[in-house]
């Protein structure tokens, strides 16, 4: 504590300098006077006495200086002094300052933007009380890869009620809602949550109250709902009177009891559920299976728990595992012999693991980690290029400031003091760049977020928080040190005499091939080339993906989802609704075709179904589950998938009629080889004795189904008229022109048929495909931008070095020209010294790219990570830019007029 007191007193004295100076002067004066008085008393004359007093006292100014050093904080005062000086210097050369600050703003800003995304995706904790106490419950056995996190409701109850190591065990499950209020219907993503959800997380209501355990006691008896802050604003305009009112969820009245606070998005970073309802209402919204809440077989819940602060993690895990096994034993006993021994053993071999839950269920993390780390490497490399570039700029500038340095050396500044002054200047520049970088970071972050689909981006929009700002400051200071160090060290080596002469060192000494300047050029070239090559590869890969034959025509298809089953429609009613809607839509002007499908193309979701096929004997462990989709007639014409043989489904294929199925070419070839599949029979019935009840009536061309990168999949289609149960389906409408223009017409038709039925996830097929390429587009966009930026910086740097050396050697060039050197030889002279640096840079850059790009392998599509053409292309591009960058200033050298130069001499 004592040092704090001393520091405080010293700090205070900095700000009371003038007062303390006067004080000191008066005190010393009084001392001297008293001393003089004494001498007068002993008989000296006043003048003699004063002189004697001064002798006796010692050096007054020296004492003052010592007191000053003792009084203030010499470190801080020197810093202020240096800063003032640096500011003055920078103000005097606004052009230089602007270039440096702009370069740094781009470099630091880009890094900050990516870091802020990394922060919210990879580092940030859930916005709840003490997130570090949260754990995610998972279980794994020795065989399975990774852990499973889905639990049954009875298991949840057992863990919640018997555990002594947790301060609350909560569970949740996602659910889709059709929300109706004031005659308007829309789709919303919601959550079923246990009654202790908000309590266990430690979230307080923004408005009204939140769910409590009392709201989650009896099955089906709690028609209450809590809105998220964002949804409350978006849907209800932030109207506080909504609390206590009823809204319709899937057509059922539910009372809104409160609003959760802004910033709270639940337990999953990539989701922001709009509405939360008690777990006990599950069967109202998800009626199938009816024994969902009792059955140990249905695992559909994720569990998060808050560990008691005084319980060690290992102890909590062991204790929970015991409970888990007790519950498993009880369940297996209840199921008795219906569970096979093999399964029983496998179930009992699994163990609970408690994972860090401070970030909730971090699913987005897994998806975003790779692109984020890649992007961060790219921006970090650009920043390094920028540093090398600025170091060069500063070197050139320091040559111009030799006089100033000479003066400072001459009046006694040591090398340490000089380095300090120069580093203060470059760190100041770094901080200025960082400050400007805040704007760049904002701009870039919003640009990046636009690549991410809306449902993922909610929680990425977080403002730049303290951690991000901390990163920005540290990055600025480190950058400043990095580019300032070389010039500072060089300047500190100057000798007074050499500097005072104001002479530039003789050309022979200054133009070594491995001069610092050339090394910096080498670094820039070597860093830029991998960036350019990466950009080329990403570009190539994206073009491959975009130009891929998808098997369908992606232009002019409008897509939207409908889920009448949520509103309690029977399958029969759904069928007639769909059929009515398709009839109405097909009659609209501008509609070429319309249909429904259970799995929309390249949406990332798919269904598989096990089949038995006529005349095909599967091996023991053969995968007999091709992709499957339920479609309406007209599906193939709305997507433009050609029918190779047989026919499309038609209205005559009804529930009463014979069951029919359409297969793709891969399916047909896999099961029937070259034989004609039309007329063959298959079944989806599990029972091995069941008849093959479906007849193949059509063969269609292969297409891409789940993602653009997939290999050909076996795929079959059934018709919705013959399906026993129907859930959400995607409407696809092929239009004559821009598919987006049809949206309102379609919505009006749906509203006309049932006002409580929302049409959601409206988009177009082209957008849907583009959304599947987020990672690729993002990486292409960023690497191109930064590859170009790095190249630009490197070439500006190169140009600067050549220009500088030409300027320094003006005299020499003049003499050479006077002696008859040709323009060509002068040009060669000016450029040649850069050749080794550039060539070495290119070589090292190629090698680095070759090594680094192995990390890109799985991101690329249709192009190898060491694609020769791309490597060559990027190398040639960079070499030509470098040649041009060197040529332009070198060319100026040939315009030197020997007469002028020599006359000056």
């Amino acid at each position: 504590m004592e040092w704090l007191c001393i520091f405080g007193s010293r700090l205070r004295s900095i700000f009371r300098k003038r007062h303390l100076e006067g004080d000191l002067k008066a005190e010393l004066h009084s001392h001297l006077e008293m001393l003089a008085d004494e001498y007068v008393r002993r008989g000296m004359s006043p003048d003699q006495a004063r002189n004697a007093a001064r002798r006796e006292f010692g050096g007054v100014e020296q004492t003052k200086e010592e007191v000053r050093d003792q009084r203030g904080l010499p470190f801080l005062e020197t810093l202020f002094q240096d800063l003032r000086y640096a500011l003055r210097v920078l103000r005097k050369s606004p052009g230089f300052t602007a270039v440096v600050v702009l370069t740094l703003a781009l470099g630091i800003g880009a890094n900050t933007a990516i870091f802020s995304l990394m922060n919210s995706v990879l580092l940030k904790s859930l916005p709840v009380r003490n997130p570090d106490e949260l754990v995610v419950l998972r279980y794994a056995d020795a065989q399975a890869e990774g852990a499973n996190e889905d639990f049954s409701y009875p298991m949840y109850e057992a863990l919640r009620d018997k555990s002594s190591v947790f301060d609350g065990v909560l569970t949740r499950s996602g659910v889709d809602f059709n929300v109706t209020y004031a005659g308007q219907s829309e789709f919303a993503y919601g959550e079923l949550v246990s009654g202790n959800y908000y309590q266990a997380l430690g979230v307080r209501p923004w408005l009204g109250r939140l769910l409590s355990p009392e709201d989650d006691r009896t099955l089906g008896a709690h028609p209450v709902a809590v809105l998220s802050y964002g949804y409350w604003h978006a849907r209800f305009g932030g109207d506080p009177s909504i609390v206590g009112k009823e809204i319709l969820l899937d057509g059922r009245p539910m009372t809104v009891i409160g609003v959760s606070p802004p910033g709270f998005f639940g337990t999953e970073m990539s989701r922001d559920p709009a509405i939360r309802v008690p777990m006990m209402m599950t069967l109202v919204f998800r009626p199938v299976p009816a024994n969902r809440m009792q059955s140990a077989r249905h695992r559909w819940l994720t569990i998060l728990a808050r560990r008691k602060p005084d319980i060690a993690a290992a102890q909590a895990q062991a204790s929970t595992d015991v409970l888990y096994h007790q519950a498993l034993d009880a369940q297996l006993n209840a199921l008795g012999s219906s569970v096979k021994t093999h399964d029983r053993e496998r179930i009992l071999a699994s163990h609970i693991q408690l994972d860090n839950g401070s970030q909730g269920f971090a699913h987005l993390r897994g998806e975003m980690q790779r692109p984020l780390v890649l992007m961060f490497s790219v921006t970090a490399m650009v920043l390094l290029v920028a540093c090398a570039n600025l170091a060069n700029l500063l070197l050139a500038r320091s040559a111009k400031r030799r006089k100033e340095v000479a003066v400072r050396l001459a009046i006694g500044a040591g090398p340490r003091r000089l380095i300090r002054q120069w580093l203060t200047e470059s760190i100041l520049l770094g901080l200025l760049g960082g400050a400007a970088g805040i704007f760049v970071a904002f701009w870039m972050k919003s640009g990046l977020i636009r690549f991410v689909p809306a449902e993922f981006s909610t929680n990425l929009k977080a403002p730049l928080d303290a951690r991000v700002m901390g990163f920005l400051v540290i990055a600025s200071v480190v950058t400043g040190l990095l580019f300032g160090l070389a010039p500072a060290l060089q300047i500190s080596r100057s000798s007074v005499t050499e500097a005072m002469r104001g002479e530039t060192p003789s050309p022979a000494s200054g133009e070594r091939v491995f001069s610092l300047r050339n090394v910096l050029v080498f670094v820039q070239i070597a860093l830029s080339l991998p960036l350019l090559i990466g950009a080329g590869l990403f570009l190539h890969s994206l073009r491959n993906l975009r130009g891929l034959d998808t098997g369908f025509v992606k232009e002019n298809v409008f897509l939207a989802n409908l889920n009448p089953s949520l509103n309690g429609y029977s399958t029969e009613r759904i069928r007639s609704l769909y059929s009515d809607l398709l009839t109405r839509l097909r009659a609209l002007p501008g509609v070429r075709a319309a249909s429904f499908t259970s799995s929309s193309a390249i949406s990332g979701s798919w269904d598989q179904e096990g089949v038995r096929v006529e005349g095909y004997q599967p091996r023991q462990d053969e995968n007999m589950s091709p992709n499957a989709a339920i479609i309406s007639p007209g599906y193939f014409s709305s997507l433009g998938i050609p029918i190779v043989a047989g026919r499309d489904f038609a209205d005559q294929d009804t529930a009463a009629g014979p069951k029919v199925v359409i297969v793709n070419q891969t399916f047909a070839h896999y099961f029937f080889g070259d034989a004609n599949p039309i007329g063959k029979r298959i079944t989806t019935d599990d029972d091995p004795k069941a008849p093959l009840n479906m007849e193949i009536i059509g063969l269609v061309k292969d297409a891409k189904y789940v993602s653009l990168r997939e290999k050909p999949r076996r795929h079959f289609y059934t018709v919705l008229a013959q399906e026993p149960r129907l859930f959400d389906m995607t409407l696809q409408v092929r239009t004559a022109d821009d598919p987006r223009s049809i949206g309102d017409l379609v919505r009006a038709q749906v509203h006309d048929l049932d006002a409580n039925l929302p049409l959601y996830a409206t988009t177009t097929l082209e957008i849907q495909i583009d959304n599947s390429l987020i990672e690729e587009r993002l990486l292409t966009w960023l690497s191109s931008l930064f590859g170009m930026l790095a190249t630009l910086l490197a070439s500006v740097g190169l140009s600067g070095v050549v220009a500088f050396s030409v300027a320094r050697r003006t005299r020499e060039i003049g003499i050479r020209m006077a002696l008859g050197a040709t323009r060509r030889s002068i040009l060669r002279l000016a450029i040649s010294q850069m050749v080794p640096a550039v060539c070495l840079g290119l070589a090292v850059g190629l090698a680095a790219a070759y090594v680094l790009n192995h990390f890109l392998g799985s991101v690329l599509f249709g192009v190898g990570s060491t694609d020769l053409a791309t490597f060559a292309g990027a190398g040639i591009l960079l070499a030509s830019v470098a040649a041009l960058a060197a040529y332009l200033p070198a060319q100026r050298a040939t315009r030197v007029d020997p007469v002028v130069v020599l006359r000056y001499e």
Partner: protein
Amino acid sequence: MAPPRSEVLQGTLDLIVLKTLEALGPLHGYGIAQRILQVSEDRLKLNQGTLYPALLRLVQRGWISSKWGASENNRKAKYYSLTRAGRKQLLTETESWERMAALMARLLGGVEGA
């Protein structure tokens, strides 16, 4: 011949100042200097100016405090006085100094005896 004069040992000036203030009560810089010279019977070489950084150091540590007042012959002077913390510090420093001095005496005496 005048007795040989000793330099003020590094670190002892603080202790001397504290002791002086304890013995005489509030005193200005001039008074402290005179008192030290007087007690040491001129055997201490004291550059009076060096007193001031030491006084400031003691103020910063909170061991003494300062206040402007009037001297005996009515000159404005800054008076220093011991604080409670300073009194405690004086006690511990005196003790440790005495221990050190005794130790040194024993060590040097031992060398002579050998």
